């Protein structure tokens, strides 16, 4: 009213996601699922809210593909239904957060185009949970080349700078575009948050911590591959909370992983990854799982602090994505014949 944008229907949206949260698969259930076969998992998840998607896709896919596609389709529908049930500033903020999936879809399309995948193959891997609807995504998929896709993205305000496209064309390296898109998304997301109230400050903190986690993942992965110095710095996303530029440079320049431990000890999530760093320096799997657990723990505690804010909704979205990832890990693990303990160790619970 009078040109002032409404704050949004926080009470309605938060109550809805809290009710949805009660339907998420519990930690004990994952242990039961580890003992099931693939058809049993399909049947079981169809009783846990995935019925519509399993029924819809059962004639097209089977086994692990059915589970993967059904869970992704369900997640996309759930996230979009939450977005569609909100209004005002809440809707705008949520839409900005869900751009994550637009970037994901754009990357999938670009990868598909660069590897010469057919339109149907690309379409199967899309997760339309963001702002771009199926019609627009289909249009992008139907374009011939990656350049045309990038050009068409100008219509939705995603302008890739000429120099980035030129470097991509010269080096024929898709990672350049992908890195740009990731940095662009966080830059846009952070600039869209107006930290005037405590909940928006917490939301901004959460996003900045997410940037820290992504940066630490990048640094550790590259360090495992023996990359350091400026080669790491170009992949770092600016805007993190705990990790200053100075610390990033120090972490990037450290020659070994063990030399970074003292610097990592300054981070707020060090306690969650400490054990994994101490016991297993050859694999980063446990460190990544530790950081994911930290992220979930943080959003949950923030959501209790401010129940009528965007944070409980983000908390649910992260948990839903985690549920889908856990189901996929179990399904893929069982299909590959992995030991139950190994699969169990990969789950984020």
């Amino acid at each position, binding site marked *: 009213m009078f040109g002032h944008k409404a704050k949004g229907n926080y009470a309605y949206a938060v*109550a809805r996601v*809290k*009710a949805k949260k009660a339907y998420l698969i519990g930690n004990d259930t994952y242990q039961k699922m580890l003992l099931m076969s693939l058809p049993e998992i399909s049947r079981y998840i169809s009783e846990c809210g995935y019925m519509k998607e399993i029924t819809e896709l059962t004639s097209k896919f089977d086994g692990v593909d059915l589970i993967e596609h059904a869970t992704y389709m369900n997640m996309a529908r759930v996230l979009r239904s939450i977005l569609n049930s909100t209004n005002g500033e809440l809707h705008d903020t949520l839409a900005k957060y869900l751009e994550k999936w637009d970037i994901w879809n754009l990357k999938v399309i670009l990868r598909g185009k660069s590897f010469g995948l057919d339109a149907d193959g690309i379409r199967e891997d899309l997760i339309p949970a963001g702002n771009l609807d199926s019609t627009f995504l289909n249009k992008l998929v139907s374009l011939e080349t990656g350049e045309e896709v990038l050009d068409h993205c100008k219509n939705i305000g995603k302008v890739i700078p000429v120099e980035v496209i030129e470097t991509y064309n010269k080096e024929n390296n898709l990672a350049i575009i992908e890195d740009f898109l990731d940095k662009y998304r966080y830059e846009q997301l952070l600039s869209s948050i107006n930290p005037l109230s405590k909940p928006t400050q917490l939301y901004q903190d959460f996003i900045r911590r997410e940037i820290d986690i992504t940066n630490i993942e990048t640094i550790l992965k590259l360090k495992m591959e023996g990359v350091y110095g400026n080669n790491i710095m170009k992949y770092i996303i600016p805007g993190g909370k705990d990790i200053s530029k100075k610390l990033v440079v120090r972490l990037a320049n450290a020659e070994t992983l063990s030399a970074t431990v003292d610097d990592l000890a300054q981070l707020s999530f060090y306690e969650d990854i400490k054990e994994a760093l101490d016991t297993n320096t050859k694999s980063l799997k446990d460190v990544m799982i530790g950081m994911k657990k930290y992220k979930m723990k943080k959003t949950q505690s923030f959501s209790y602090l401010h129940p009528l804010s965007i944070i409980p909704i983000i908390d649910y979205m992260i948990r839903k994505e985690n549920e889908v990832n856990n189901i996929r890990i179990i399904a893929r693990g069982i299909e590959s014949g992995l030991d139950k303990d190994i699969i169990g160790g990969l789950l984020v619970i």
Partner: protein
Amino acid sequence: MDEGLAAIGAGIAVGLTGIAAGLAEKDVGAAAIGAMTENENLFGKGMILMVLPETIVIFGLVVAILIIMG
């Protein structure tokens, strides 16, 4: 004169508590509908929570009656 002021006081007591109950019910009602959209079984709990702010109006009404009768 006194009767007129008492009537104004009684009106304020009921009116303000009515507005307060309305403001409280706005969020409680929206949350109850949101929860019921996902789980119909929450109707009973939603209904109880929905009528709780009505007690404020009852207090206002009692105060108004006391003013008028006194």
